[in-house]
């Protein structure tokens, strides 16, 4: 699926740039595209390394295990295919918690780690499992309770009440996530019938 997106973006983007005569722009994009990717990676690298280090401490002191026990009742409903003591659940819970608090950059390492854990039990390594898809849906939905970046920017641009959008954005993000989860649930049911 990612292949299609990739090819679509590349062909439509390049095609339209050639069509509109922006061949210089296209050249420029092709030549500097890699540098932008590296720049993004360099932004992520320190955070990833630090957080996986901290989380390893949490894992070794069994905090992660305790945390996943705490959220197990809720998560096992969302991920029926995972055994209740699956190690990925702790990371999934941490990822959702970090996302909810608007700490997107802290959430990514947990999410990647959760995916790694899920992949270990995956019989077909190139195919996404049900649990992976549900986790992805939760993540792409971005369950944000405190949209910190938005509030900070609103403040910067002199809003009289920067945080007035918290409630409305919670409503929007929850509906969106529930819609995604229902979609996922229906698809899963269909497959099992």
């Amino acid at each position, binding site marked *: *699926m*990612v292949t299609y997106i990739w090819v679509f*973006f590349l062909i*439509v*983007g*390049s095609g339209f740039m050639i069509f*509109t005569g*922006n061949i210089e722009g296209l050249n420029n*994009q*092709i030549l500097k*595209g*890699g540098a*932008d*990717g590296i720049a993004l*990676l360099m932004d992520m690298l320190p955070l*990833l*390394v630090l957080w*996986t*280090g901290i989380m*390893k*401490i*949490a*894992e*070794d*002191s069994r*905090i992660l295990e305790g945390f996943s026990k705490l959220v197990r009742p809720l998560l096992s409903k969302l991920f029926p295919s995972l055994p209740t003591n699956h190690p990925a659940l702790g990371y999934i819970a941490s990822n959702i918690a970090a*996302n909810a608090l608007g*700490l997107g950059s802290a959430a990514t390492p947990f*999410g*990647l*780690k959760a995916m*790694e854990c899920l*992949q270990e039990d*995956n019989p077909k390594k*190139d195919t*996404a499992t049900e649990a*992976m898809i549900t986790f*992805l*849906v939760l993540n*792409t939905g*971005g369950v944000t309770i405190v949209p*910190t*970046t938005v509030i900070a*920017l*609103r403040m910067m*641009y002199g809003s009289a009440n*920067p945080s007035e*959008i918290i409630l*409305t*954005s919670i*409503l*929007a*993000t929850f509906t*969106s*996530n529930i*819609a*995604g989860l229902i*979609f*996922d649930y229906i*698809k899963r049911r269909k497959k099992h019938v």
Partner: protein
Amino acid sequence: MFNLSNYIVPIFVLSIVIYAFHKKVNIYESFLIGAKEGLITTFKIAPAVIAMVFVTNIFLNSHFLEFLFQFLTPFLNQVGIPISVLPMALVRPISGTASLAIMTNIFASFGPDSFVGRLASNLQGCTDTTIYVLALYFGSIRVTKTGHALQAGLFADFVGIVVAFVITFLFFG
């Protein structure tokens, strides 16, 4: 504004370290092992990130989306949807930085407390960058057959965007 989220990260880190110390975990050793895993993960996701940033940039810079809006404008005017916010809604699932840039633009030209400003705020908060997250997470573990993940993610985005429009009308319209 008192920003609670400023305290969350330090408290989180400190409690883990203090608890681990109390449990006599070899903290330094654990950190090094974990940090090494983080380095390896970064290398694993590097190809996916570079690949995705590359094509996303080409796609966004081709201004193909703006070209599409021209045809949508008359219809949207009739429904009363502000044009300036539309590129943001379409870019949101593709690139977080791009949609953030559009939001900042809207704040600068209309103000964050304008209707469009509030709408943009809600759009930014309602969902995450589906396509990027999908490419990153599945790319990191080399999963290419992603099932219905993209459809579900885009469906959620669509619902989120529609709901953000409706809610902004209801609350601030």
